[in-house]
């Protein structure tokens, strides 16, 4: 398996990650802009047991706009934040991709907080934009699951590889009693982003279909 090393600017704080990341994402939120000093942040998540951390770091704790606590670990000598941990995903460590100093590092799969994106930043269409799901989110939050499933057909046609769109639509189909569609879309989502299998295992949106043999086979 590939082993990659991330480091801060001065080289004091080093992190070694084995294997490929389970999720690479870019985030345009204002907090990521402040922390990075740049237009967006990019982070790669690895299972904690595949990451080795050496040397000293200080912590900055921040509660995200969604209410989740994040602890950012930075080098006390040069200030670089090399990795962070999140309470609700305690088995994953997020490493700041720039710390690998490797332009060939796997590109992001998803782009979040697109509403805060600097307009001149060019994001290729191959990177999933959360703006696509944002158009359906109010209906999801209102519990209009069948309505989301109906409207999503066109979006999935336009963005057939957007794993998190497929996942969210599968959630709605599960709740709307459309079992076959839910399993088909969840299968496609997991094929593109394996981490979504773990999410599905603990997501109450899938409770209505959790005992289906096809769901159990897919999620375990």
């Amino acid at each position: 398996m590939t082993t990659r090393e991330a480091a801060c600017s001065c080289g004091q704080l080093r992190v070694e990650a084995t294997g490929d990341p389970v999720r690479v994402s870019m985030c345009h939120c204002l907090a990521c802009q402040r922390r990075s000093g740049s237009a967006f942040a990019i982070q790669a998540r690895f299972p904690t047991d595949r990451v080795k951390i050496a040397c000293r770091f200080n912590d900055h704790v921040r509660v995200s706009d969604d209410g989740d606590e994040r602890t950012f670990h930075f080098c006390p000598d040069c200030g670089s934040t090399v990795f962070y941990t999140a309470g609700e995903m305690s088995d994953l460590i997020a490493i700041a991709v720039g710390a690998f100093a490797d332009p060939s590092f796997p590109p992001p799969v998803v782009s979040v907080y697109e509403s805060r994106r600097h307009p001149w930043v060019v994001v290729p269409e191959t990177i999933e934009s959360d703006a696509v799901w944002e158009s359906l989110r109010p209906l999801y939050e209102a519990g209009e699951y069948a309505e989301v499933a109906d409207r999503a057909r066109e979006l999935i046609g336009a963005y057939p590889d957007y794993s998190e769109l497929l996942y969210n639509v599968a959630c709605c189909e599960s709740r709307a009693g459309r079992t076959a569609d839910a399993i088909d879309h969840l299968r496609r989502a997991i094929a593109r982003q394996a981490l979504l299998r773990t999410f599905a295992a603990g997501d109450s949106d899938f409770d209505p279909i959790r005992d289906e043999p096809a769901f159990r086979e897919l999620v375990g």
Partner: protein
Amino acid sequence: MAAHEAACSCGQLRVETDHDPFVVSMCHCLACQRRTGTAFGLQAGFTADQVQIAGAVSDYVRISDEADEKEHVFHFCPECGGTVFYTEPDEPGLIVVMVGAFADPSFPAPTEAGYESRRPPWVGRPSTIDPA
């Protein structure tokens, strides 16, 4: 109220200015990637008399790889690690502020790009950058 206000993540270190930057540039060098944790550094140049700085700073000194081997002093917040600005001892009239610290997607776009050979291939070249 100042035209532009920059701050670190925790808000301890702040930079204010009533002026627009004389240049905004992006840099894809590996040192900027490590410092920012992302695909490029993004910075706005001001003259020293145009900005007010408040808060405690820690310094990290780095000598540039470029032929001039110029010294850069990065000023970061000791509480949260956020680098808010840098200075160059050889250019005492210059203050370079990290654009992300303004947390303002309407901040002026970059018109220059450095170290484009290090740009990750999936990062698009903004149309605001002058042709190479």
